[in-house]
């Protein structure tokens, strides 16, 4: 078994646990590369089908390419697609900065969808390597009654035993690709020939590394025009970024931590 096989087997295991142990689940389909890989993995887990709804909480502000992708593959993959709108931007706290306000709007839309369908589990395509707070996530992550996440009081999770009993009225987030990296996603997308939205590939020296709403997503400078080139780009950009950080503040952290913790 190679690296991707192992990742795949683990994700399939998680999908089957979620489907078997929760009553009513849905997969959050954001149309991006991660959630497309998720759908693919789910179809592997369930022998070609997605036996629960794919939920698209729609801000109405995605790229046209994304809507076309949704409409096309929603049919081709025979998804039980539920598109749920978000409340108008005016309904969201106006004191928030623009990007946060936009995100808050999506959270509201999600809450409305949860209330409408009564899901006890939502499958989300977050990854640990995306950002530090996500790194602390569990695979089965309980949410409070308000949908909030209490990072300090997470249940232990080991040996692939997941806490699958959300409190009454609350729900669980399930993260089947938490252990994948950005490179893994691309390598797997290539290996399995999973369709992608062309915005990920370079046009005129720019490409999108992740896709969100049009107004708060920016492309990065890149000449990667196919997945192989993306993989090479990720491989190469990683090193200078990291070594740069290490010289600046990270080694300083290291000294601090050394003094404080007497680590190992």
């Amino acid at each position, binding site marked *: 078994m190679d690296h991707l096989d192992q990742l795949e087997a683990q994700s399939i295991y998680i999908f089957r646990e979620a489907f*078997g142990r929760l009553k009513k689940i849905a997969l959050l389909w954001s149309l991006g590369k991660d959630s497309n890989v998720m759908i693919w993995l789910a179809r592997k887990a369930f022998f070609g089908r997605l036996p629960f709804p794919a939920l698209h909480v729609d801000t109405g502000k995605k790229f046209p390419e994304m809507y076309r992708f949704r409409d096309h593959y929603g049919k081709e993959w025979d998804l039980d697609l539920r598109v749920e709108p978000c409340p108008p931007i005016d309904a969201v706290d106006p004191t928030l900065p623009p990007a946060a306000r936009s995100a808050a709007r999506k959270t509201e839309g999600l809450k409305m969808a949860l209330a409408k369908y009564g899901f006890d589990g939502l499958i989300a395509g977050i990854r640990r390597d995306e950002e530090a707070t996500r790194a602390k996530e569990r695979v089965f992550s309980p949410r409070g009654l308000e949908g909030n996440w209490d990072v300090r009081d997470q249940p232990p999770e080991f040996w692939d035993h997941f806490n699958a009993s959300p409190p009454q009225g609350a729900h669980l987030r399930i993260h089947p690709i938490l252990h994948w990296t950005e490179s893994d996603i691309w390598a797997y997308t290539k290996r399995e020939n999973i369709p992608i939205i062309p915005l990920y590939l370079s046009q005129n020296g720019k490409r999108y590394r992740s896709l969100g709403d049009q107004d708060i997503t920016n492309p990065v400078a890149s000449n990667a025009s196919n997945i192989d080139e993306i993989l090479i780009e990720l491989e190469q950009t990683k090193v200078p970024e990291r070594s740069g950080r290490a010289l600046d503040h990270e080694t300083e952290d290291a000294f601090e931590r050394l003094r404080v913790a007497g680590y190992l």
Partner: protein
Amino acid sequence: MNMIVTPASPATPNGTTRPQVRIVIVGHVDHGKSTLVGRLLHETGSLPDGKLDMLKAVSARRGMPFEWSFLLDALQTERDQGITIDTTQIRFRTNSRDIVLIDAPGHAEFLRNMITGASQADGAVLIIDALEGVRDQTRRHGYLLHLLGVKQVAVVVNKMDRVDFSAERFKDISDEISAHLQGLGVKPTAVIPISARDGDGVAERTDRIGWYKGPTVVEALDRLEPARPLEALALRLPVQAIYKFDDRRIVAGRIESGSLIAGDEIVIMPAGKIARIKTVESWPVTPVTGRQGAGRSVGITLDRELFLERGDIIAHTNSAPRETRRLRARIFWLHDKPLAKGDQLLVRCGPKESRATVVAIEKAVDPGELSSVENKAIGRNHVGEIDISLSNPIATDPYTENPRTGRLVIEVSGRIAGGGLVLSVDAGQRAVPVDIVPVESALRPDERSARYRHNGAVVWLTGLPASGKSTLAKALERRLFSNGGSPILLDGDTLRAGLNSDLGFSTADRSENIRRLAEVATHLARNGHIAIVAAVSPAREDRATARRIADTSFREIHVATPAEICEERDPKGHYKKARAGTLASFTGILNDYETPQAAELVIDTSTRTVAEAADEIEQMLKTTGVLFDEVVDLAANI
């Protein structure tokens, strides 16, 4: 998991995969663990280019002497940018091994990290400061290694430069730690004098330790034996789900160990049903040919329709797991409320779950203090050995035989509260796979208990001849029956007239007599009746067997009437005959009755009436969940 992966090394030059060994480094906090790790990474050429120079430059800039331990921290923090998880793994390579160093950092969550990390280690390095010698924490860590079943331990005596590389000092420490470890059943694979800071003994035997003839640290690591790869173990495919999305009935699960291929004859445990794998299904291409090994999430179809359920284990017919209702486990406890004898739990062993009761707590240890606290409860972040009885039989392996199926987690109120390793499986003969399918009752337990207003139970009355067992048994039978229950009396003597007429009074025959009584009684209890057994049952071992068979339904009552009064009563004249020498092997005057130590109830019939004694039994059956109280909460008993 946070992985710091140095250049991958999938294969040796000749194309074979290098053995991978997982190690953990333990020892007192200031005895030089990080320095050794930093030094090892350097000596084995595992550092990224320029890393060492960069750190030296940073140290110089800050006016601090360079320390090897900074290295580990820098690598750590670098990845921490994106990842902060409990367990860290660092990879490096020796001549013939890929080493995965499992790091269990921090002390606050010490136990959780130590167990999840080190329980998977193949070997350990125990580090001791030559100046300070063996400290409490050194012994403590040695104990934990023993607890976790890590058998390969290399000891390094560090900071030899601070004792002038004294061979004598080294020998003292070596003797002391070797004796300690051997007392725990751990034989050190090597005891090595080193200076991690200067490099002596790490990869080279320098002149300063010229008197030392043993292996260096790198050589010692090179000699560690890797755990057997999971694929080489017996097949274990725990059933995660059964899907019938179309005309295929697919049994889905992840292969935890071993491998399978279409055409294999398999046995489904615990039922012991046999079938053949028809196909291995997949998507988008199906069926798949070729052998599927450990780690794969697969779906198989069988050549016949069999009843399977989540949690069953599929194995090959010649290497089936043990089936048990009782096991011993070494566990770590994470819940606020201490785990106590009698606690009701949910045990998960892979996808299998079973309600369970803590029958005994054998050891309870605070690994921080290493004081063996009273064996009554296991507190938060403590460890211990417990006996668990399970309400459903499960198929499992001791963890020494299979690290994947030999581990379990414990849930309290739907939340994981602890975990542990299966040490031994009691009363679990390796199940003989047979083509018999036990016929299940048409009635569910809750249907019966709704009618009888009680759960099934085995009420076991033990005591000297003429102590009053049969009298009490009959009184209890009448009372339960009057209340609408379903009691059934199983009198030892009565059964000897029929079912057990082939048995005499030898020790072996007595054991078999008790076993049969327990089996019959348990069958009745499983079908909702209260089996009342009245039997002298003098041997503790035999009664323990009965308890094992009847499991959580077992209620032991010691009828502890004083021997003189029993002899005085002597309704059957047995005491008289025995005194006269005409009755051999009579329990009562031979002092061979072994008094129960943990009976649910003790009754002396010389000090109370039959009615009073029956009251007490009834009360006990209520408090232990056999008889329902006035308000019947059936839901709680389903």
